[in-house]
């Protein structure tokens, strides 16, 4: 479904990704593991078109999307749920969700999608008319995920969904992600909570200094010594 071929990307003169290649099959949950600054977020941003690709190709359903702008990529069915929630703080939860279905394709089915999403997130429904900035961190993360789903994406990308959340909330977030998986969606997830993520994922890639250094089944990675030492601290 998604394939990165030797992608280079970065900000201004600084190159972060030095040739990242990976694939995501339809219906899979794939995770990218790596330390801070390794380039995980940049990889997702490059796919979403927010960071421009300087070399290499990003293929989505066979089409090269590396030169498309972010809104075109959303149209193709890729949605990224950004790190740190990134809600629109002065908007209500409802408005935030509606923004998720901004593109014309998603807008047509907006009411139905909203109902589906709210069924999935009863907590969000309770808060529907509150200002996003008044929500707790966990609630905000739920809204961010719900907002991402409003676009009815074929591929949903999570960037550090558990960031800054209390452990209890983290578990809830992962429950939600598992629900999404169960519904058959394709998910690409970047997460520093390596253990949780590898538990949830089918396959994983290890990214260091802008390069993929390892890729394997999630379970294999969980027992991999390098992973255990570098990311699990044991």
């Amino acid at each position, binding site marked *: 479904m998604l394939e990165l071929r030797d992608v280079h990307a970065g900000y201004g003169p600084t190159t972060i990704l030095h040739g990242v290649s990976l694939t995501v099959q339809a219906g899979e949950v794939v995770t990218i593991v790596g330390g801070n600054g390794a380039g995980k977020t940049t990889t997702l941003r490059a796919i979403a078109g927010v960071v421009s690709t300087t070399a290499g190709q990003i293929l989505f359903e066979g089409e090269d999307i590396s030169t498309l702008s*972010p*809104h075109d990529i959303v149209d193709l069915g890729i949605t990224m749920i950004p790190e740190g929630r990134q*809600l629109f703080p002065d908007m209500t939860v409802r408005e935030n969700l509606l923004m*998720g279905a*901004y*593109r014309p394709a998603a*807008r047509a089915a907006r009411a139905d999608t909203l109902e589906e999403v709210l069924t999935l997130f009863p907590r969000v429904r309770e808060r529907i008319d509150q200002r996003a900035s008044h929500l707790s961190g966990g609630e905000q993360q739920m809204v961010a995920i719900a907002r991402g789903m409003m*676009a009815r994406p074929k591929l949903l990308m999570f960037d550090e969904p558990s960031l800054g959340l209390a452990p209890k909330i983290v578990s809830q977030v992962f429950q939600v992600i598992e629900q999404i998986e169960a519904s058959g969606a394709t998910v690409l997830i970047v997460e520093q909570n390596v253990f949780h993520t590898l538990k949830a994922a089918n396959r994983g890639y290890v990214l260091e200094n802008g390069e993929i250094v390892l890729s394997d089944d999630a379970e294999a990675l969980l027992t991999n010594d390098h992973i255990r030492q570098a990311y699990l601290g044991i």
Partner: protein
Amino acid sequence: MDTFLQVLVNGIMLGGLFTIVAIGLTLIFGIVKVINFAHGEFLMVGMYLAYLLTVGLGVHPYVTVVALAPALFVLGALAQRFIIQPLLAARDEHVQIFATVGLSTALINLALMVFGADIVNTPSSGLRTPLEIGPVRVLIGQICILVTAVVAVIGLQLFLGRTNTGRAIRAVAQNRTAAQLMGINANRMHILTFGIGTACVGVAAALVAPLYPTSPNIGTYFVLTAFVVVVLGGLGSIPGALLGAMVIGVVDAMSGFYIGSDLREAVVFGMFLVILILRPSGLLGSRSTLSHVSP
């Protein structure tokens, strides 16, 4: 008492005038986050266009709004696309200021070349007729300005709050990256916002031209006042612009009457400085838009 009432009403009418001029500025300022020193010159250009159309076609000045709003929309959108946008990436926001100052200078002098230094007067078509309401007198045209200002405030507020495009514009202002991830074309929204803001100036021009003499330098006066209004009301707050304009209008009228016309400007600008420093979020501004103050 009657005099006080009259001064107050004059102030409110002036407030209406400032609102209609400042409303586009606050939109541009609050959302595109660009300080547009050429805003007053857009008004000036609009007023000259209103004059030409009114005199040339013999229509009522208010009719010209049909042409003015689109024309200025295009002017604003072009300015955003070809002057502001290329500079957004510039390392230094000061460069943008220079660019808009340059644009302002160029437009003033262009008007001087085309129309001369002489003032022109758009036919007032009955808008200067005073109405006596109890002890106070107001002009029909002033009432039209006030009503339009209030309608424009409500309209813009509804547009930003209730429509998809309006929400998208706000989304870009609140979180540009997230907005892009929602599939919103941020650059296009900025161009649109700049265009709408400038189109508001077009509406203002059609309303203001029949009441006030038009000269190349007219914008200079308005733009500084408009900045005061915007900062007072709170950056990017549309109702704030209305409130700020009313405050400035009344202060302007009161200080002109009770303190003296020569110190009016000192009072208004002094107030501006105090607000800027003591309450930078303005009367109705959101704290989250305070990008202009050090944390």
